[in-house]
């Protein structure tokens, strides 16, 4: 896969992640229940838990900013600057997503499908970002 193709795949993933985080941000501020396949209120339980905010900022909004930063770096910054920046953002996002998944499993006792989807997207982004950073085409 060429460097350009890798960047494009990551851009698609970042936009998908931004869509998920954007939806959860909207749900948070609108104060409505997120759509949850199978019902049961698990998504709402996660979204309304104390962990849904970090320093008063909704975690979903932080995710949205992160995804948009990744997309922005991929689309606008020169490749030499974008590679390490995107790797940092995606690794930080993946680490925090892993922590949030741990909270869902062991603290909140509820799994939000949107959060899991976002965690998977971020994990793929991190793998691709590291792959792209380590590829040397000289």
């Amino acid at each position, binding site marked *: 896969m060429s460097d350009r193709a890798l960047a494009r795949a990551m851009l698609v993933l970042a936009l998908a992640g931004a869509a998920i985080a954007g939806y959860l941000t909207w749900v948070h501020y609108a*104060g409505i229940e997120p759509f949850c396949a199978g019902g049961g209120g698990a998504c709402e*339980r996660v979204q309304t*838990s104390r962990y849904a*905010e970090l320093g008063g900022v909704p975690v979903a909004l932080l995710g949205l900013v992160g995804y948009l930063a990744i997309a922005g770096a991929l689309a606008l910054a020169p490749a030499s600057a974008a*590679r390490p920046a995107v790797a940092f953002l995606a690794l930080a996002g993946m*680490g925090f997503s892993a922590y949030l998944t741990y909270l869902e499993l062991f603290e909140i*006792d509820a799994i939000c499908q949107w959060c899991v989807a976002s965690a998977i997207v971020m994990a793929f982004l991190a793998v691709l970002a590291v792959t792209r950073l*380590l590829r*040397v085409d000289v």
Partner: protein
Amino acid sequence: MSTKSERRAAARAIREQRERAERRSAERRRRLLQLGGAVALAAVVVVAAVVLSGGGSEGRASSGGAPSAAQSREVGALFAGIPQRGTVLGDPRAPATLTEFADLQCPFCAEYARDVLPTVVRDYVRPGRLKLDLQLMSFLGPDSVRAARMAAAAGMQNRMWPFAELFYRDQGQENSGYVTDAFLRGIGSAVPGLDVQRALRQRSSPAAARAVQAATRAADHAGVESTPTFFVTRGGGQPRALELQTLTPGEFTAKLDAALR
């Protein structure tokens, strides 16, 4: 036999190949350094986020305003089928009332709710011998005020008791600012039958403020100095304080029986 120019060309090719390999090697080292920096920086950011979210704190049993489904069911079962009206739990025609002055942040109130209340509900409230009146004070601090107002709003929907019960199970560190809107929404959404949005709106209403003030006035009037404090009132008689040394079902029911005789 190769000519002089061919030998020169071969030497140049070797040199260029070596230079390319050196450039690749230098670039690889640079990228590895960048990756190391990205990993280190990401780790710092993640650890900071975890600490900020309270995940690094120890000794905290609170689930952060997200009671488990099992807790929600347990509390639902505790009060199932018992009439609730405002601050009162139990048959309105019950011959006696046990009034509890409590603060939702108070750990002893949580201890009573966990260890003693189920026995009181089972042996006194369900058989119609007693009704319980929960007067929520807010003397411990701003988190208590926010909690009491939300409880009062839950009381407007006759859901104050399960709300308080679930809150106790999720108590955080006193006055740490943990009683946020998200926390209250989380507790409220675990209360069976509670319209959380309505409760969140109504907690700012004059009626909720009046309810909290009324509890404080009643506590002042009764001379309450600590929580939880209990009074038993039989019929239209005078309230009698329950003098408790420990919060165990055995001692509590013994004192309660004495007051009801």
